């Protein structure tokens, strides 16, 4: 039996659903339509097939997710949106989301040490000033209730973020507070076979 992954990692686990994915052959026309857009343009995964149980929502949710993470022209750089995703996913301890987006962050920035520090010290991680401001705001926003305040906004402005960039960061951390709740409750991350 493969083990459930419980520690933060950039090795993307296999996601094993707790809720039975829909069968694509038996999908209703609305379910088929809801599968036309997938998160980050990936394959039609078990995750998406589980979410297709509620096609009315999925048909808007996947495009919204993609717009926040990779659309929304101008504004915050793609890598910084990934850092927002990592901040929220770390607070919510979503191993799968953290792995995917930490890996993408490192690919885009080559700053593996930022992710190493986050994995080691979690919400208390000490980072370079710009990354610190982005990460701390994302962490505070993900708290329940949110703890983000004007001090966080001042820190973001001090490292040069515009209002548009601050809202793009807000959106990426916020949409991950939603995504984490789907990913870490409807299934679980399993270690991939090492051989």
């Amino acid at each position, binding site marked *: 039996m493969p083990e459930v992954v419980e520690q933060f990692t950039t090795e993307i686990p296999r996601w094993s659903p707790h809720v039975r994915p829909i069968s694509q052959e038996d999908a209703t026309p609305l379910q088929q339509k809801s599968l036309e857009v997938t998160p980050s343009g990936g394959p039609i995964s078990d995750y998406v097939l589980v979410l297709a*149980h*509620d096609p009315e*929502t999925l048909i808007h949710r996947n495009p*919204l997710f993609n717009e926040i993470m990779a659309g*929304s022209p101008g504004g915050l750089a793609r890598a910084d949106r990934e850092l927002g995703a990592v901040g929220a996913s770390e607070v919510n301890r979503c191993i799968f989301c953290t792995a995917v987006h930490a890996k993408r962050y490192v690919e885009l920035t080559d700053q593996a040490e930022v992710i190493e520090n986050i994995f080691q010290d979690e919400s208390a991680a000490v980072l370079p000033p710009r990354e610190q401001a982005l990460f701390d705001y994302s962490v505070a926003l993900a708290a*329940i*209730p949110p703890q983000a305040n004007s001090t966080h906004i*001042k820190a973001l402005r001090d490292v040069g973020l515009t209002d548009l960039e601050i*809202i793009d960061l807000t959106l990426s951390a916020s949409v991950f507070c*939603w995504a984490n709740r789907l990913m870490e409750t409807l299934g679980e991350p399993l270690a991939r076979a090492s051989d």
Partner: protein
Amino acid sequence: MTLDSVIPRIAGVEAGSPAAAVLEERGRVLELTQNSHDALLTPTDPGGLSLALRAALATRVATINAEEALTAHYRALLDAANASTEDRAIADPAHALGAEADRWLAAIVTHADLLATAPQDSNKATIEALGAAGVEDSDIVRLTQLIGFVVYQVRFATGLRLINEQ
């Protein structure tokens, strides 16, 4: 038009403010956010989760997040729905369902609270327990999307208020 949807309304975004200027640039996000709201609160096919129960659970989760304006929004939806006394009680997070409560409903409310406050504590057994209480797979997905969406809304609105503050 941009400001005429739930998020700018509950965040108190007024025309001419910094947050309004930003939302001008993020019209597509705002539109898809409103569409998600409508799909979750007033769906064509609600499955096993009535519109009143959805509004009650959304009120409960907005309250847990200390989000007053969003709580008021969902309470108004609850008032407009054909809510039972039980649905109204669920809207208040201080209300725990008693031993005599329906098993299906108790499982839904317990899971909504877990999703809102400690999703990392959910596991395979948690989802199996929902199934054992008679909650359909499709309703587990609907419930998870609903709570996840409210948690997202709270934070989106928080960011808009903060950039308007100073």
